């Protein structure tokens, strides 16, 4: 019976901590007033285009998330920017380019082919070529036997 008070106080403590964690921070960032942060485009085809692009753009604040997933205010601004430009008829890759021009490749989850990244794309081709060469030798040897 001596254990019960300890267990109770532990429960009380964890409850207090849980409550404390739910108290919102004092300084709340104002949500963005950008019109399309939380509103989809009326044209489903364009919304789909925008959604596909937003899933491949990195939120600058919570960097593990795409702007489609993130609830950070800056991601809201970025979503609205993407949707407004798509609605105006801009191509998704042009919008990606506009962002990369400002934030570098890091803002995009879709890898770009640049002078720095070309080995990543070339290496599989080289490896497949090497494998084909080795296999051909192997098969020749088998035939000869």
């Amino acid at each position: 019976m001596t254990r019960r008070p300890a267990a109770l106080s532990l429960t009380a403590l964890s409850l207090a901590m849980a409550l404390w964690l739910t108290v919102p921070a004092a300084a709340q960032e104002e949500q963005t007033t950008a019109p399309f942060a939380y509103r989809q485009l009326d044209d489903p085809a364009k919304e789909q285009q925008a959604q596909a692009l937003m899933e491949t753009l990195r939120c600058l604040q919570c960097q593990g998330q795409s702007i489609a997933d993130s609830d950070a205010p800056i991601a809201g601004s970025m979503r609205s920017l993407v949707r407004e430009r798509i609605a105006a008829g801009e191509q998704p890759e042009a919008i990606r380019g506009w962002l990369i021009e400002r934030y570098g490749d890091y803002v995009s989850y879709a890898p770009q082919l640049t002078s720095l990244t070309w080995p990543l794309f070339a290496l599989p081709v080289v490896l497949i070529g090497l494998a084909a060469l080795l296999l051909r030798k192997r098969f020749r040897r088998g035939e000869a036997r």
Partner: protein
Amino acid sequence: MSPPVRTKAPAWAIWLPLGLFLAFAALVTIGLLRPADRTVASTLIGKPMPAFALPPALPDRPGLGSADIATGKPHLVNIFASWCIPCRVEAPQLRALAGAGVPIVGISVRDSTEALTGFLKENGDPYQRIGADDDGKVQLALGSSGVPETYVIDGRGVIRYQHIGEIRPEHVAMILAKLQEASQ
């Protein structure tokens, strides 16, 4: 038609897997001990500031357009907000810079007039102009990924330097040097 000759692997080859594993382990350890810097810097340094025009954030203060900055004299463009705690930390340094005669203009991001008025009353007001970037578009156009950030813009409107995070007392001399550089 001779049978294939099996060449014997050299003796050191047996250590190769272990060596590769150790090299990999070392790489992981370095990555863990020294995580990569994930600050997203603007890639517009050295390029002209994008054109923009922001409405006034306060009724008694003019708004901010890119034309107001390219006036032949270097400016500091401070991206801030009343909800941003580090902005309070850098406020004394901005006041000192304004006191030294540096023209400072502000872009207040996702803010409200009431909150902004309170913020300026509490923390001082070094701004000649304040543009209201309520939807965050100009912040994105400038390649800024958070608040506070401060840009040094030269007299022709070219971005010369981006300071990410709050300006601490030890940064003031460096900011002044960047402004001096930009005025040449």
